[in-house]
């Protein structure tokens, strides 16, 4: 049994890390907003989905203008990411302005319901537009990187199997790392990052220190949503099909990742995302093997969430909940 698990491990790890990187970047959006406002922005999954659709629309536009032939694929990729980030960032700011700011003084439950409302509106709006354009809301996405290559782990040790990696997977890793490191530096090293941490700690005191709280909150929403939108583009390129409902379950898992890492903690969210992604992939590849075929791959989510429950029983504040004092 262990020989088989070890044999598949390299491939499982690579697939798991790719999925985990996506969860991690989406989880950042949840955790940042929670850190600042103590509000769970359940519309964030839909922002991710909108990013996937915006990115795909821009890609179709590029192809329509015949630009993809002339440009190297990575340049169009970066351009698409940029456009999707700007659009979803603006969308996040708009949602904050319309759905959350009027309710900032209301009980937390009210803004939660407003978040659900926003998610339904976004789902159906995107579905409507996609259906209008293609007649079918499940959209197939053209791939910018078609290539794949094989990593020969078996030459290191005979117990390990080889892994096939899509070029796009490498791109996911690069983009995710750039975004996460960039965010970490922004929050910890810049003036605006400092303002953000101040608002997260104490909103009233921060405003007395001449920090424009509303601007900081808008900025948080912009950055969180832009991160979510960029992941949508990565997701669409990785899996090749998108529909308006991808945001729900993925958002739920990313939220779980944020909780696992300690909600409100940025590094915790990154770590939690990777853990959930790898666990899920590991479970779906090995559950059948470990239980003698009684529980198949279809129980992978049960497995991942059971781990979450166990962690929360022993560490209710999440893995990184207390390690770092400040929120954001």
């Amino acid at each position: 049994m262990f020989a088989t698990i070890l044999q598949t491990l390299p491939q499982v790890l690579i697939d798991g890390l790719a999925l985990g990187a996506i969860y991690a970047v989406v989880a950042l959006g949840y955790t940042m907003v929670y850190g600042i406002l103590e509000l769970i922005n359940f519309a964030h999954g839909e922002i991710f989905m909108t990013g996937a659709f915006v990115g795909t629309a821009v890609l179709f536009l590029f192809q329509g203008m015949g630009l993809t032939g002339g440009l190297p694929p990575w340049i169009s990729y970066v351009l698409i990411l940029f456009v999707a980030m700007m659009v979803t960032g603006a969308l996040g700011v708009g949602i904050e302005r319309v759905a959350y700011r009027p309710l900032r003084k209301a009980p937390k439950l009210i803004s939660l319901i407003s978040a659900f409302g926003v998610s339904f509106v976004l789902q159906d709006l995107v579905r409507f537009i996609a259906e209008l354009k293609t007649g079918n809301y499940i959209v197939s996405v053209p791939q910018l990187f078609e290539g794949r290559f094989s990593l020969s782990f078996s030459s290191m040790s005979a117990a390990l199997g080889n892994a096939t990696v899509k070029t796009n997977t490498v791109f996911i890793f690069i983009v995710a790392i750039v975004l996460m490191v960039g965010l970490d530096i922004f929050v910890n090293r810049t003036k605006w990052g400092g303002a953000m941490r101040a608002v997260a700690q104490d909103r009233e005191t921060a405003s007395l220190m001449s920090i424009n709280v509303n601007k900081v909150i808008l900025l948080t929403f912009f950055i969180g949503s832009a991160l979510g939108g960029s992941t949508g583009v990565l997701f669409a390129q990785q899996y090749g099909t998108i529909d308006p409902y991808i945001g729900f379950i993925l958002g739920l898992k990313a939220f779980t990742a944020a909780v696992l890492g300690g909600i409100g903690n940025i590094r915790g969210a990154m770590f939690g995302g990777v853990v959930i992604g790898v666990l899920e992939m590991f479970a779906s590849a090995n559950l059948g093997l470990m239980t003698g075929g009684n529980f198949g791959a279809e129980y992978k989510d049960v497995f991942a969430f059971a781990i979450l429950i166990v962690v929360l029983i022993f560490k209710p504040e999440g893995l990184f909940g207390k390690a770092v004092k400040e929120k954001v």
Partner: protein
Amino acid sequence: MKWKWNGLVAATLIMGLLAGCGNGGTSTTTGASGSGGSSSGKVIKIATQSPLSGGSSIQGEAIRLGAQMSLEDHKEEFTKLGYSLELVPYDDQGDPKKGVANAEQIGADQAVLGVIGHLNSGVSIPSSVVYEKYNIPMISPASTATEFTDRKLKVANRVVARDDFQGPAAANYAVKTVGAKKIFVIQDKTAYGQGLAEAFRDEAQKLGATIVGYEGITVGEKDFNGVLNIAATQNPDFIFFGGLYAEGGLIIKQARDKGITAPIMGGDALDSSGLVEVAGPDVKGALYSSVAGEIAKMEGGPEWGARYQKAFGKAPEGYSAYAYDSMTIMLDAIKKTVESNKGEMPTREAVRDAVRATKDFKGIATEVTFDDKGDNSFAKVYIYEFKGDTYPGELVSEVSQ
């Protein structure tokens, strides 16, 4: 910010308004053309129920259009009898809850004498209970699950083959023609996917192949790398997937991305141009069994296909002709009952029994004789292979009961 939101709201409202107008427009035109044909006020309505939105909407739309085409062809006959025909399309969204809710609405409309539908077995089964309550006969051009007719309802009929015939036929082809020895089976945990996969698995084992894995996936997910990693370690020489095309296409694509080269086969739900759209060039070499034959090779098929293309501006899908035949059977039965009822509006019970009594009907796609359960004795299973990345695949084998 504020004006932006106002603009958005206005845009949403306008879009909603347009959508409403669009629907209203089409329904009034069908209504008008229906009543325009005859002077009498007697209307016979036939409902279609199929997914017009969602993952199977391409096939669902094909069912509606096929049925609509037959209805238009028979309009004149009925005008002579003093009736005007009207098609009422319902969208079941491939969702059992929606299908049942629609069925209740259909049952309440006394003018509806028959239903063509559904596509998904999982929707057909619960909805047929409602039709049984109202005695509305249904003919499904696509539902293959055994349970659909095994409950011996008086209203449930189908013109296509059963899963316990389709699965084994596919297994037969996989083991005997392709020569598969180590088979990996994936299913999507729905009534259809699981039933088909189990029928395939049992027959393949009987024929001497080894099942090296039997795993489930969840409908609506996009990442199947976990299941495919298991498949890769087992190194199978054949993969069978019981499920729908949205997941099937992704499985084919992601398997090829992983370097799995074994042929991948699926059931009739993969019989859609949507599969090619999702899987892209990787679809080449994929196999599917289908209960729908190749229209172009059937008697009168090419002419029919050309007429369909002309009427709706798109090529017929696998189920289009079956929906056409289903509607023709339904209308024949209604005509018979009208005639035996001396031109009066027949009861639903009479139509129901007339549909079940259909014998040696010769349609475009298939001959039909319903047995006492509502299964078609002439139903066949066809095996197709994608030779390139165009739909449909090429017919490689044909199995009759």
